[in-house]
């Protein structure tokens, strides 16, 4: 145990090591190199052994096994993670900006009265202080922050850090769960079941062309010409969160942190500002063309080509121009 160690929460929803954990380990290694400490990975599970091979970039893998940790539940996981933190007293705790992270990181900070930063894109340790650059306001602002107290809890945005390479020498150590950890059914928040999306809708992760719409579409009726454009391109229509929240498209069409991750050959982003949560799900596309009225929209940071224009002014001429190209 050392106050210079960096602890990573290795989350495993539905029995799969979350993709962001490799990035967290990469960030943790950079910080640990600065402190001279070790990289610790905490796995909270009914049986953590299947995840050990994916955590070999850590120095130590702390495995908390308990039947109550078979599926994620905020209270139970928080209690188990708190036990690890109390035993290890790390300098910083790195948590992904994920569905689980959005519970665990703020609850942990509030319980421990510890400093928390959200939307962390860069992190370093200088003069004993954790320094971070964080994204806020949907990526329209950045904040450089400094944290003196330990443990600093950093919620890391996916895509911000290079994944760590495996050393293959991580030491696996069992950690006793809290003695009073309730049985799964005894918890105030008890997992009941996973609910999978209904089958039958278009699988947007399998499409080579996606026409994505965001808040700039303004009304549901505007989806019709956009669907025609997508049909012409042999693709499908997908969306950012506000469109799904409005009920204009099903959740199976949502791209981003809590939706789908897509990597089409063409991603035509219409009226999407490019909040980090959306970019996370589409930045791996081969060609990104973005249309937005706001010249400062963060989507232009990830797009290959940008157009500053109202999307509805462009859709019809674009449909005609593509139609013309296809018929010649």
């Amino acid at each position: 145990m050392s106050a210079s160690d960096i602890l990573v929460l290795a989350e495993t929803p539905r029995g799969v090591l979350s993709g962001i954990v490799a990035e967290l380990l990469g960030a943790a290694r950079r910080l640990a190199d600065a402190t001279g400490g070790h990289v610790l990975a905490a796995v909270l599970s009914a049986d953590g052994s299947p995840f050990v091979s994916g955590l070999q970039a850590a120095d130590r893998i702390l495995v908390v096994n308990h039947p109550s940790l078979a599926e994620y539940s905020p209270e139970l996981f928080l209690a188990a993670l708190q036990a690890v933190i109390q035993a290890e007293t790390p300098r910083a705790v790195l948590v992904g900006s994920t569905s689980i992270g959005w519970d665990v990181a703020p609850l942990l900070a509030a319980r421990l009265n510890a400093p928390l930063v959200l939307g962390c894109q860069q992190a370093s340790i200088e003069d004993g202080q954790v320094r971070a650059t964080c994204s806020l306001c949907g990526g329209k602002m950045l904040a450089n922050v400094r944290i003196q107290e330990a443990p600093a809890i950093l919620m890391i945005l996916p895509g911000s850090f290079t994944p760590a390479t495996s050393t293959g020498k991580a030491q696996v150590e069992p950690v006793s769960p809290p003695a009073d950890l309730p049985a799964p059914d005894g918890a105030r928040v008890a997992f009941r079941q996973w609910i999978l999306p209904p089958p039958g809708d278009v699988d947007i992760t399998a499409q080579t062309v996606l026409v994505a719409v965001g808040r700039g579409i303004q009304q549901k009726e505007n989806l019709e010409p956009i669907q025609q454009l997508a049909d012409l391109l042999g693709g499908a229509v997908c969306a950012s969160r506000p469109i799904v929240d409005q009920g204009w498209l099903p959740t199976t069409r949502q791209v981003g942190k809590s939706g789908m991750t897509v990597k089409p050959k063409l991603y035509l982003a219409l009226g999407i500002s490019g909040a980090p949560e959306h970019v996370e799900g589409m930045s791996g596309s081969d060609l990104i063309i973005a249309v937005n009225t706001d010249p400062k929209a963060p989507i232009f940071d990830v797009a290959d080509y940008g157009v500053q224009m109202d999307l509805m002014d462009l859709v019809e001429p674009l449909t005609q121009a593509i139609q013309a190209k296809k018929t010649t």
Partner: protein
Amino acid sequence: MKIAVVIRHVPDLIEPLEVDSTGKAFDLSSAAFVLNESDDHALEQALLLKEKHGGSVTVLSIDFGDVDNSLYAAAAKGADQILKLLWDDPNRSPSPQQAARMYAEVLRSQGPDLVLVGVQAPDELDGVLSAELAVCLGWPYVGVVRGVQAADGQSLLVCKEFPGAVMAQYEVRLPAVLGILGAEQPPRYVPVSRIRAAMKSTQIAEQEAAVPAEAARVEVDQLYPPAPAERAEMLTGSPEQVANRIAALLEEKGLLR
């Protein structure tokens, strides 16, 4: 079921965001404010629960960012009681930690079964109000929630969103705090005429809550907009010119078949 909903006004991201002379905080003196989107969904979820299972909905807000309009809109949508907590600095919003303590003080005396709060606000940097509030009250918490149903008088069935349009369903014992990402249906539209009527008929109760001292554990050194985009090549011209250019690009890359 007695439901409390916390709503906040936040800077409108459509408008330019200004930084004050310290370079470390927003200049909110001329900012436009809007209802925080996930709080709007929290209100909708509360109204849906009330319609389905009965009970009452109380909407609480700290008096910041011209929030009255949204409070009257909440009344017009069907909230039973509106409560505003006094706050005397128009240029600085309370931190999530301060706000949580203020709301907790009031909620302890109100005694709701359920508190719904939007899971995120765009200007939150060093705390999440919904989770802070749950810890202050000592109540169970689930965030990133996209649907709530009453299971029985003692508990709720709550859907938490995961990637890939997957949900995890939890049974949550009451009283509880939920961080709402989205309601089961879009926030309802309320005509301006009904909001005007609510302005005449609704009494916004005002209450003082002790404002805890700010204990910033995260020091902001600089707040700034990101450097202008460099990656995208901007296509300019009339819509027809831009459309032809995009069509040519797609043809060149073999994407028109």
